């Protein structure tokens, strides 16, 4: 677990909202333009700071959903009921608004082509967001590193990026599996239960292929999946995790 030295100061910058995308009833993507953005690795996150009229400030971290793309970066935000920040970003923020960000932050839960593969992405709920940045990077750069994607959502309407994933799944070297854990349409052909060892056996790279594995989601999801991966023989040093608790408030 050695780190790359990224030691320059991270200053707050004003960004402008240039596009808003409704990803699901509870999830919205916010495309930000950050003039002079220094770039980022797929999987990194940013901090957002909101300021109230009385000067009170709140900060939250959000994963970047897109690979490096000039001055543009997209965050994908899930609504947290009674949250302090996400309801504003999802229900009130408008194109043309400005928000303060700083980043990029983090450097371990990242993928770029130099790291190679094969790559196994496993996401629960909105934990797919940083994984999507990695898959988009793979597709956009024309990399031939083989990727497998396994994600878990409660219902069909909660699936994120589905059209884009369908398009990617038809490419050579990318397979996409999505499981729906609470309800599913009658014609759903994918699995319909929580991620378990049998599902990992059936849909993900076997340990013998020594995949780089990225697991992101709620704490319970990541604990279960990472523990199962170790138990079926994956090396702990090849499994990178990112967890967000029930307190994304």
């Amino acid at each position: 677990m050695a780190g790359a030295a990224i030691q320059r100061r991270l200053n707050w910058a004003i960004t402008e909202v240039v596009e808003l995308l409704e990803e699901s009833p509870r999830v919205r993507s916010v495309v930000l333009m950050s003039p002079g953005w220094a770039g980022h690795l797929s999987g990194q996150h940013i901090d957002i700071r909101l300021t109230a009229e009385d000067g009170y400030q709140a900060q939250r971290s959000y994963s970047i959903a897109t690979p490096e793309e000039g001055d543009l970066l997209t965050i994908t935000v899930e609504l947290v009921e009674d949250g302090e920040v996400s309801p504003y970003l999802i229900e009130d923020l408008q194109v043309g608004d400005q928000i303060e960000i700083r980043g990029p932050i983090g450097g371990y839960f990242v993928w770029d082509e130099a790291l190679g593969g094969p790559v196994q992405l496993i996401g629960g709920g909105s934990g797919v967001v940083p994984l999507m940045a990695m898959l988009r990077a793979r597709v956009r750069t024309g990399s031939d590193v083989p990727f497998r994607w396994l994600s878990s959502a409660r219902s069909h309407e909660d699936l994120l990026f589905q059209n884009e994933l369908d398009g990617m799944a038809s490419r050579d070297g990318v397979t996409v599996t999505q499981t729906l854990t609470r309800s599913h349409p009658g014609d759903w052909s994918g699995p319909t239960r929580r991620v378990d060892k049998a599902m990992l056996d059936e849909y993900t790279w076997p340990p013998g292929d020594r995949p780089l594995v990225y697991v992101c989601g709620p704490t319970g999801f990541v604990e279960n999946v990472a523990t199962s991966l170790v138990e079926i023989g994956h090396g702990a040093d090849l499994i990178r995790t990112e967890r967000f608790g029930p307190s994304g408030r």
Partner: protein
Amino acid sequence: MPVRREARAWQSSTGGSAVSGVEAPADRVPPGQYVTADFPVLSAGPTPKIGSDRWRISVTDREGREQSWNWAEFSDLPSEEVTVDLHCVTKWSKLDTVWEGVSVDTLLADITDPGSHLLVRSYGGYTTNLPTNDVTGGKAWVAFGYDGEALAPEHGGPARLLVPHLYFWKSAKWVNGFDFSDHERRGFWESYGYHDYGDPWLEQRYSGD
């Protein structure tokens, strides 16, 4: 701790709008933090499963002299119950958490001059760096109990470092060694751009803060 919720109007170029906020005593919550009742888990990899039968902790001073304790020996050391506030760099703070642990002073009792800096090592490969003065003088513990129970593996059990006056990534989970020396060596998150010291009251989240 009573938590009051009130409407909050964020400024934006379209005039902002009211959203809910959480208020807590200002002298308990550092800048940029919010109070949560949950205990979120953040780790870079799978949770190591370390049985107490093969657990060990060691202290190595600046001259390379090592002293170590197995679980039974560690359990015989005097322990303290402490109630502290936690501040995570990912913005959550948790107030009035109750821990049981062995003071780091106790582990250093036989060492007169360990060295000015400390690199903490954990099962699973995690490391973090601290000045020695920040783990001595009753400021840090090797904690094995949380809220009256054995510390759960996902929270760092069987034992983790507890340094509550610094951001919580300094409180290394699954701790198994203290390597002292006379120079600073960056730990895991510190080498990815997180602050070398990490004082939440000065909001030292990232390098240069």
